[in-house]
């Protein structure tokens, strides 16, 4: 299957890490947010807020998670909730850590 490279065992997402949406995942827009489908493990997940969809889509272009939250205009007070939601997505490989240039293999 598609184990995410170097993902922490508990799937915890940290603010200072670069992440990206998994290549096997497609997002389908819905009135409440989006439906995420993983073609590899066939898991279906619901992103229950449009804001969360913006964050997830923005992960790949942001240097780290904090920057993605900022770009999606999420108030800092709500960041812990979003980090928890992202950790949930990481556990089913919906998002995975991004390898950056020069990062340890």
């Amino acid at each position, binding site marked *: 299957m598609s184990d995410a490279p170097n993902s922490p065992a508990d799937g915890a997402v940290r603010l200072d890490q670069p992440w990206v949406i998994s290549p096997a995942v497609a997002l389908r827009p*819905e009135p409440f947010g989006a*439906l995420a*489908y993983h*073609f590899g493990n066939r898991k*279906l997940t619901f992103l229950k807020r449009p804001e969360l969809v913006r964050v997830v889509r923005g992960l790949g272009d942001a240097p780290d998670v904090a920057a993605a939250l900022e770009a999606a205009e999420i108030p800092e007070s709500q960041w812990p909730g979003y980090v928890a939601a992202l950790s949930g997505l990481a556990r089913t490989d919906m998002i995975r850590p991004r390898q950056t240039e020069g990062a340890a293999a």
Partner: protein
Amino acid sequence: MTIAPERPATTRIGQLLPTTGDRTPRGDRLVDQFELGLDAPICLTWELTYACNLECAHCLSSSGRRDPRELSTDQAKAVIDELQRMQVFYINIGGGEPTIRPDFWELLEYSIEHNVGVKFSTNGVRLNKERAAFLASPAMNGYVDIQISLDGATAEVNDYVRGPGSFDTAIRALENLQEAGFQDAKISVVCTRQNIGQLDEFKAIADKYGAMLRLTRLRPSGRGADVWDELHPLPEQQRELYYWLMANGENILTGDSFFHLAAFGESLPGLNLCGAGRVVCLIDPIGDVYACPFAIHDNFHAGNILTDGGFQQVWQKSELFQDLRAPQTGGACAKCSFFDACRGGCMAAKFFTGLPLDGPDPECVQGYGESALQSMNEAGGRVIPESSQDHSKKNPTRNQPVMLQLGRRPDDLESALKPRGMPVSACAESPLAGFDPGTGALGGGGGCASGACGC
């Protein structure tokens, strides 16, 4: 050109289901959003053909004969293209028996190449060693799921409703899939009065073939309406099923079909919501779209993909689906303290047993369904809706199930030999009863000439 024939006027569902008129979600849960419908279905069933080698007594789609208007290969591929555009990530293919369509394997490959994963239901008739190897091959990329139907853990119970030889066919298919290395095939069981006592045996069969067990609810849909009274589980069996699912639920699939049992207490895993027209729908072999696989009836017909501008148009714009997505008041059930758990149960089960759509499910575990059925019977009889379509074979074939009562001979000889009652009519005892060769109107022939028995 009009392909579909004129349809009779039907009752608009919105008139049968009182709605609150309020289009804001009931709460913050996902099911509250789902009640209002999605831009594309999550669970789409596509019956590819009404043709079938079997004639199961309880067939939900009254299948048997191919419909001459069946979608062509090209039309079917255009449907797949549209589903890909709508991001319907996987579909459930059924029938009839889908694998007896000659282009089935071609459509399967086409769908998978277009990122529309497939789960197909089959009685196993075409799953020989060669096909099993193909299905397990990298060409399928793990995007295909197979569901083998088995409605008894023994040939006796299974063949009673599915027809002679069907148990062996299913088991052979499971053997072939296992031998080919196909992972996680599903054994799909419709729970009936006759097989609820076999749940552990079903699990053992699944374990033996490395398969997963899927249990679903018998609906009075299609030919199921004719046998529902005899086959549907008794109240104590529903309880048995519920506790079995609570104990084994994690590894058992249910297609979310037992949400009416949630009123026993704790909800079973799943959405616990009627998804008809909201997250679920059916495309039939001629391109007709219905609210749910168990509701192939004009009243639940949303449109046709060939004549009404394509599937997306029907899904998003049809009047029927708009009605189903309007939040409902819950009718008579709203007062029940379990309404939040079961949400009134299954619409198709109510409709095809003649119950009002805003009333209780016929198998309501609080007993309201039974009393509703009883009081309607007493008040002059329920009206069970006539089926809108029937593709059953017209003449009996050797695969037809023979639904003789499953029973045991009494243990002692005396009661076994004693007559159980008076003969129903004279001719039930002797074909020549009442026949007088001298005066009979049909002189010279055998058989009953009395005319008294209506035979």
